[in-house]
Each structure stands twice: as structure tokens, then as C-alpha cells.
């Protein structure tokens, strides 16, 4: 009998499914047993059904204005229950530490005074917005939604690649992937107990309502989108639909007297909580880019006056700064008195002259990332760059060491993936999503697994041929499946646990070439185009 995995070869990097060729790990046994008897033709047919369903349902992302289906690979990625508990706790821990950090730097600045994080790193971050100082969220939450990018290194250890606490996207694909897979591979679902993912919109809505301004009994929540031309528009629409709230564009909102309202057929209706999917820079032309047509003039003043809540909060981007990322283990120690559950990928801080010199000597072996980039923009994988590119990079890094970090090139873990009509090992990463309602950080079981489709590629960006996989967290035993309550989020700035000395510069160490996050939105200016006002005849 033909074996679907017959000519599957293990690649460089940790194989998620196989210990050795033909020998699946325990977590994958049921899946392996179900897939193995299928012929590649059968699998191909189901993959086609999957692709067709995505196209018809319009499950797409927009790239340069063109809608494309987001390829979903038919082989899921599986995470064992106990592994997941580590990830879940680690992600929640980071969110709690970053919440405390943001509250601190937009407030008293104790962490800076104590020298745990150098003040200049914060104030020189492109996403540190003084405009946000003094805006105090009602329930202390600035990060309603976090997307923490993880990879598994060569030993199978989950490591944090970066934190996204501005407008992380991709969660819609987690939900849609699950629905589609359940239709296409029902027999695998029957054989496996998988934690469900469909409660995300309810969790998100709960967190958004909990963040409403004081004194609002039944808050009106909206999702603010840049519009249909945004790459993540599909997700914005899905979240609004599944939360049962309005999806608004900037032109639907009006701000007067520090109150925000949306324009409805029955006049203006007050809005209390805005889950914005627009970057800070485009949010309010009064404070940020004056030419932005996406946002609402006066929004930030209304937030400062406590009349409307913006989620995630303005100015969160400083916590996404990749140089700050290197300090997160220190922040966890400083604010929570704990050790980081999930290790970082070791990183060089280039402001240190020794580290800079070391890195400049080895550009061809390292991965260089701009500190304020998102969506993988500007990342250079040294081993894949030409001499000319490296020379240019050297100039840029020397000229602006603050603007870059360097990491070792990590061979990301691999999962069998349908390429043509055969299964091949391809690199994956993982973006779990966390929702903070002020009492508890809830982590969606699984998250978005992105897979790099070209052979050997380390960049999982969909613009570079990336796709996704349904990500299963096994339910484990009944008792283990009971969700563990996270400790409450620190609502106020905590006392430092103990004075912490500034850590020594990082040792030269690993860093993955994992780059571009597919769904991270590319903000694009777009004119407020009316879709309806066609008047050729009327």
C-alpha cells in the first residue's frame, strides 16, 4: 500500500511530527494513523476543497490591493497539553509584565529611574508617544489583545521571537481554519480531543466591555477598520460580526465635545469602546499625521477625558520595539518577581560597541532586524544576502545602531506540509493570542501557525509564499483540560520586587530568520471612497 509519508524526509530543525523517519511523536500518532492510509490523490482532493471553500467564503488577505486566499495547509500542527500549559503561562506572564511596564512609563517612570531599562531606549522608540502620557485606562488595561510570536528552536524549546501589543492580527484565520478543517478531515477530529477556539470573540468582547469608561452601564463597542483595502480587513469584519458590534471606518465616527459618536440612519449614537485596528499614527489627525483620512479628529482628547476607551491603548508600540524585547526577561523579574517562563531568542544590542563590532564582523551569519519594523519589513538574513546587500546593511547599522538588533539564525521547527501532491518538511512559527480583561489574561488555545511554503525558507510571510496550519492543542486528561486561572493582572504600578542591576550585554546568540508576519497590517492611506454613490443614471 502506498504510504503517504513514504518519501517524507526530515529537514534541518526540530520535526514536530517525527522523532525519526516513519516514527511519529506521541502527540501526532492519531493524526499520523489517519493520514497514512490516504493516497496523495485523496489528500489532494481534500486540499482542493479546502482552497475552494476559502475562496468562496472570501477568507482572504489583501496584498498590494489584491485579495488573495490565505493558503491553509491540510496537515494540522499539534501541541501537547503539557507543552501548551507552559506556552499559556509564559504568554500570560509576558502580557502582565508588559502591562506593568506600559503603565509605568506612561506614568511615574519608576523602571527608568531604577535603571532597569535605559531611559533613552524608551524615549527614542518610534512608537513611544508622549501624547499617551497621563491617559489612564479605567480598568488599568492597555493590552486588550496581544499576539506573541514564538518559534521552536533546534531542541524543540519554545522561544519568544517578538511581542505584538499594538494591533496583532491573524486570529480570524485561527477560527476559520478550524471550521474548514472540521469539514474536510472529520475523521481526524473524531479521533482526537482538541481544545476549541470559537470562544475568542466572546472573550474579546468581555475584555472590551470591561474597559469601558466609568459610569457606562451598557457600553457600545465598535471595531474601527481602515477599510476594505486594508490587508486584514477580512479579520476586522469577522471580529465585528462575531462580536455582534458595528464595524466602523473613520468617516463613520465624529468626535465633538470629547464625545465620540457614530453616524447612523437615526442620527448620532455614542460610542464607548473602540477596538481600533488602525495604527497610532493614523488614529487622530489632531495629534498624529494630519493627512490621515482613516482616523477621527479629536479621538485622543476624548480618550484623555475618559469619555471613550481606545483598545489597544495608544503608545503600546514602545513595548513592541525589538530592542526593548531584549529587556523583557528583566521586566518580568522587576515587576512580577518571577523568571521568564519562555526564553527569548538571544539577541545582540548594538548600542554596545563590543557587540556592534562583533556583529559587523559576522553579518553573513546573523539575522538583522529593524527595531520598529512590523510585518517583517527590512529584515536581512545574512546567510541569504548578497555581498552588496551586506555592505549596504553594514553602513546602515553602523550609522544607526539603535535602529537594529541582531540574532542568530535559528532553524525553525518543521511540520509535514502538502507541496504539490507530496508531504515535505516546512518551517513554522506560532502566534498565540492573549486577551486581557483586567482580571485575567486568557490565552486562546493554539494560535496561528504560519508555514513557509518554499523549501528551506525561514520567512513565513504570506507575501513570500507563506500559508497557515490549523493548530491543535490536545485536551489531555479531563482534569488537565480544566483551564487554569491566571493570576490577576496588576492594575497599578507595583513596587519593584527588588533592585535589579542592569544585566550584562547579551551573549552572542541565536536568532531566527523568522520574519514577516503575514497578517500584520500594512497601513495604507486610502481615500474615503463611497461604494454606493454610483450615479451614472440616477
Amino acid at each position: 500500500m502506498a504510504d503517504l509519508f513514504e518519501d517524507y524526509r526530515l529537514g534541518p530543525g526540530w520535526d514536530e511530527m517525527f522523532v525519526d523517519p516513519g516514527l511519529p511523536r506521541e502527540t501526532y500518532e492519531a493524526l499520523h494513523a489517519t493520514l497514512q492510509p490516504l493516497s496523495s490523490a485523496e489528500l489532494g482532493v481534500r486540499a482542493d476543497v479546502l482552497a475552494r471553500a476559502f475562496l468562496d467564503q472570501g477568507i482572504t488577505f489583501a496584498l498590494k490591493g489584491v485579495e488573495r486566499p490565505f493558503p491553509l495547509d491540510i496537515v494540522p500542527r499539534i501541541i501537547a497539553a503539557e507543552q501548551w500549559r507552559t506556552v499559556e503561562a509564559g504568554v500570560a506572564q509576558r502580557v502582565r509584565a508588559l502591562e506593568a511596564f506600559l503603565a509605568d512609563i506612561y506614568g511615574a517612570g519608576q523602571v527608568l529611574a531604577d535603571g532597569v531599562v535605559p531611559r533613552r531606549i524608551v524615549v527614542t522608540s518610534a512608537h513611544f508617544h508622549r501624547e499617551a502620557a497621563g491617559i489612564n485606562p479605567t480598568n488599568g488595561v492597555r493590552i486588550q489583545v496581544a499576539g506573541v510570536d514564538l518559534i521552536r528552536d533546534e531542541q524543540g524549546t519554545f522561544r519568544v521571537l517578538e511581542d505584538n501589543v499594538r494591533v496583532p492580527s491573524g486570529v480570524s484565520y485561527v477560527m476559520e481554519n478550524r471550521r474548514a478543517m472540521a469539514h474536510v478531515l472529520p475523521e481526524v477530529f473524531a479521533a482526537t480531543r482538541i481544545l476549541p477556539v470559537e470562544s475568542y470573540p466572546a472573550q474579546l468582547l468581555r475584555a472590551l466591555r470591561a474597559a469601558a469608561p466609568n459610569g457606562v452601564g451598557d457600553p457600545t463597542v465598535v471595531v474601527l477598520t481602515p477599510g476594505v483595502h486594508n490587508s486584514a480587513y477580512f479579520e476586522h469584519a469577522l471580529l465585528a460580526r462575531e462580536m455582534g458590534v458595528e464595524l466602523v471606518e473613520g468617516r463613520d465616527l465624529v468626535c465633538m465635545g470629547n464625545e465620540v459618536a457614530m453616524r447612523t440612519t437615526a442620527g448620532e449614537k455614542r460610542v464607548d469602546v473602540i477596538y481600533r485596528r488602525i495604527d497610532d499614527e493614523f488614529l487622530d489627525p489632531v495629534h498624529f499625521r494630519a493627512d490621515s483620512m482613516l482616523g477621527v479628529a479629536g479621538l485622543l482628547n476624548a480618550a484623555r477625558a475618559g469619555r471613550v476607551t481606545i483598545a489597544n491603548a495608544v503608545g503600546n508600540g514602545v513595548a513592541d520595539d525589538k530592542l526593548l524585547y531584549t529587556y523583557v526577561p528583566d521586566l518580568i523579574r522587576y515587576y512580577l518577581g518571577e523568571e521568564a517562563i519562555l526564553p527569548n531568542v538571544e539577541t545582540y544590542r548594538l548600542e554596545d560597541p563590543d557587540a556592534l563590532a562583533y556583529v559587523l564582523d559576522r553579518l553573513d551569519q546573523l539575522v538583522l532586524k529593524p527595531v520598529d519594523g512590523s510585518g517583517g519589513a527590512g529584515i536581512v538574513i545574512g546567510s541569504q544576502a548578497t555581498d552588496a546587500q551586506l555592505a549596504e546593511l553594514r553602513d546602515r547599522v553602523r550609522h544607526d545602531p539603535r535602529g537594529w538588533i541582531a540574532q542568530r539564525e535559528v532553524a525553525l521547527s518543521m511540520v509535514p506540509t502538502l507541496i504539490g501532491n507530496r508531504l515535505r518538511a516546512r518551517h513554522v512559527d506560532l502566534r498565540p493570542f492573549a486577551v486581557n480583561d483586567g482580571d485575567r489574561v486568557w490565552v486562546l488555545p493554539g494560535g496561528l501557525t504560519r508555514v513557509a511554503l518554499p523549501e528551506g525558507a525561514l520567512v513565513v510571510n504570506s507575501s513570500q509564499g507563506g500559508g497557515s496550519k490549523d493548530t491543535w492543542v490536545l485536551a489531555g486528561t479531563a482534569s488537565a483540560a480544566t483551564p487554569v486561572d491566571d493570576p490577576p493582572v496588576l492594575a497599578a504600578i507595583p513596587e519593584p520586587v527588588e533592585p535589579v542591576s542592569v544585566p550584562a550585554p547579551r551573549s552572542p546568540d541565536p536568532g531566527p530568520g523568522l520574519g514577516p508576519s503575514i497578517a500584520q497590517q500594512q497601513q495604507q492611506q486610502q481615500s474615503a471612497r463611497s461604494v454606493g454613490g454610483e450615479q451614472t443614471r440616477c
Partner: protein
Amino acid sequence: MLSRIAESLYWIGRYVERAEDTARILDVHLHRMVADPWVDEEIACRSLLAVMGVGGADGPVTSARVVGLLGLDEQNPSSVVGALAAARENARGARETVSSEMWECLNTTWHGLPDARRRVEQQGVHAFFRWVRERCSVMAGLTDATMSRDEGWHFLVLGRSVERVDMTARLLSTHVRAGGSIPSWLTLLRSCGAWETFLRTYRGSLDDRYAAEFLLLDRLFPRSVFAALSRAEACLSELEPDPGRAGVATDVQRIVGRARTGLEFRGADELMTDLGGVLSSLERTCSQINDAVSRRYFRQTSAVSWVPEAVA
């Protein structure tokens, strides 16, 4: 409901109806070219383009050209393909409001348009028009079955009804301009799906007056102008739940009501003697309704102007 979303739903209603009706009108036209040996193709084509508001075509105009302009032109939201694309684009911007099934129907149709063009080449235009009618019917059925009868529904049905008044008037205009021979009435009623109902209603007495009366005034046939105007009136009164003490609440209700009573109480004889005038007045009415609906519901709030200051 957000004004923008209401506007999108109204236009989804209009565009889907427009796609379907344009396909029907083209079907009638092509059928007449084949069935009527005395028709002058050039004149008939120019006349159709004029009725449909596509003016100024240079050079010789053939039926193939008409199909290109009114059927397949992607850039023109009045063509069949253009209207389907516009409906889908509106639905994309209102995706959290329309049901998933409606969205999927419009999206799948849109994805099928390139194939449809191939179908025109391989199987002829009738296969294409048939496909369009079917897709529009699926959409109508899903709308009916999955959409809550709330404000959004009323806007969608209002748009559909306004478009239907407009298109039925245009359909009748093509006929009046062509001289209104008996065989062409037959084609026309057939293309509206009205032939059998008509026969049952008038027991086979096919003449100008009955046919026009049927399409203009029949209370029971859903594509008649009267039925569509009544439907629009019903939607408008749902959108304005407070009837007030005297008359109606809004401009748009007045315009629609006047048009409906104008048909209802003038009597068939009077309407027939000035059919051309009645039809062009209906088209003007549709345009007025559109303006009044926009003013009333889609531009609810005063515009806030924001002038960015140059920062030194």
C-alpha cells in the same frame, strides 16, 4: 444602523436587481433581432442603448456591441458584470451585516464572472444570461431566507424595488420605441417571467393594452411597477415608524406615494395614450427617490470639516 452600511445595503439591492433586469432586457433584445425579420438592427440597438442611458456610441452599433456594453463591460456599474461586481464590493464593505450565505453567494458569483465570459464565447449569450438570472435568484432566495427583517432588510428591499420600477419602465420603453408589435409583447412578457401569469390573468387575449397594463399596474405580479412602488412604500413606512398626525413623514414617501397614486388613479386608458410620457416620468421619479433617500438616511449628520494646520 450605520448610515454607510444602510447605503451599502440599499445599493446591494439595486445592483443585484439591475444585473438581473439588464440580463432580461438584453435577452429580449436579442430575441427580437432573431424573431422579427423587419427590424433594423442598427436602429434597435441605438434605441436600446439610449433607453439604458448609455449614450454616444460611435461607429456602427451591432447587437454584439450592445452585449459588450450592457452585458460585459466591467467598468460600467450599469452593465450586468459591472453591477454584480459592484454588488459584491458593497457587500464586502458591509460584511458584518449581510449574512455569510448572502456574502458567499455574491462572492462566488463574482469569482464566476471570468468563467461566465468564457461561457458567452462557448455557449452563447443566453447561457450567460440564464446563469445571471439564476445567481440573482439564489441571492434573492438567501436574502429572503437568512436576513432578519430589520432596518437593513428594509433598505435592501427599498433599493431592489426602486431599481425594479426603473428597469421595468425602461423595459417597457424599449418596447414602445420599437413600435410595440404583438410578437414582441410576447417576448417581453416571457423575459419577465410573466407570460404564464399573464395568460392566466387575461385568458390569452394578447394586446398592447393588456400587456402594458399587466407590467405597469398588476397588483399581484411582483415585477409590475405598481407592485414595486407599493413595496417601496411599505419599506419606507417601516423605516419611519412614527406616522405622524397628517400626511406622511418624509419627502421620499411623498414622491413614491405620488408616483403610485398617479398610476393607480389615472386609469389604464389614459396611461396607454401617453405611455412614453408615463414611462419617462417614472424614470425621473426613480432618480428623485434616490436623491431623497440619500438625503434622509445616508447623510444623516452634518459634515464635520477638519482643516489640518501646517506645522512649522
